[in-house]
């Protein structure tokens, strides 16, 4: 059965995991600040480094061009072994994003690996905006409208509605 030795080792595993998470998130912030990637930004909003706010610019030559989206990122002490929980705060009408801001992206689920970081994940979400996966939509209506010429108009209408809702 479980000996005291095992207990001690599982405790130290948990402690070292929390240390890895926060020291890695600190490094990632440094890289983001130094890197100055265009079109993405992220910063922690609390002193534990486990909650971040990020912004993504809509990619050029897509319907989302010139739009800015705000996202929330939540990490656990399991990071980077499990992916962060990422949601859109700003309304984003998109085939793979639902009205609550949940994102359907394989690297945030089963395709996650411990080498992904905030930067690579934000860049993936940014490219998802322009290249949705229409085979597995989270918002079937947006998926059905995607190919329509007035998708942008429909999208902006949804965003205006969403913004009104969030300010009430």
């Amino acid at each position, binding site marked *: 059965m479980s000996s005291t030795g095992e207990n001690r*080792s599982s405790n*130290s*595993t948990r402690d*070292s*995991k929390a*240390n*890895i998470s*926060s*020291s*890695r998130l*600190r*490094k*990632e*912030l*440094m890289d983001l*600040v130094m890197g100055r990637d265009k079109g993405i*930004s*992220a*910063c*922690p*909003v609390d*002193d534990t480094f486990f909650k971040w*706010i990020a*912004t993504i610019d809509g990619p050029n030559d897509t319907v989302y061009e010139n739009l800015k989206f*705000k996202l929330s990122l939540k990490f656990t002490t*399991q990071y*980077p*072994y*499990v992916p962060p929980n990422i949601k859109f705060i700003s309304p984003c009408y998109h085939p793979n994003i639902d009205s609550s801001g949940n994102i359907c992206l394989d690297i945030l689920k*089963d395709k996650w*690996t*411990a*080498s*992904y*970081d905030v930067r690579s994940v934000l860049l993936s979400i940014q490219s998802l905006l322009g290249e949705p996966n229409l085979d597995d939509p989270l918002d079937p209506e947006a998926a059905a409208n995607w190919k329509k010429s007035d998708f942008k108009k429909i999208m902006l209408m949804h965003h205006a509605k969403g913004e009104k809702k969030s300010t009430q």
Partner: protein
Amino acid sequence: MFDLSLSLIEGNLFLKYNHHHCCLDYHRFTITMPNTEPEEATRENRESNDGSFECNICLDTAKDAVVSMCGHLFCWPCLYQWLETKPQRQVCPVCKALISRDKVTPIYGRGSSRRDPRDTLPPRPPGQRTEPEPHPSTSFPGFGFGDGGFHMSFGIGAFPFGYFSSTIFNFSDNRPAPSPSNPDYLEDALLSKMFFFVAMILLFYLLVA
């Protein structure tokens, strides 16, 4: 609301201002706290600038390094944790090639082979000789430094000037030579820059209020 926050991360001070909870920008200042050992600080900087020997999971210099068949470097504890997390899908975190415990090669640098913690917490890969007792005194050099970071944040309405100036600006004059990658900020310039920002934000606040 306008809100200003400062974070000290590994000897770098970040000034961040938020407007309506949206992060607008960072400003980085390099300061040296009086209690940090200068040699260690520069070594840490140099190490973090050289990505060749950084673990692909913790992003730190690889400790108890192992290399996969696909050539990716990890700390053994970091990789072990990853393999434990996904026992049914053991892939290289970097290139997603198949990976397993018996297919990684430990790397022994000069003077580092005496201790092998793979013997203790994560069971080490087979094919190695029996190791002597691990030395508990051998800690990871230059690693605990990142834990010294702190973060403070305050609204503009309750600006704790006293605490701010006594804590943040309590660096002494015996500043060590900066590492070559960091621009040499003069302390005066830093102070005036800082207060310029604070003054700007106060001004902005007065205009808005």
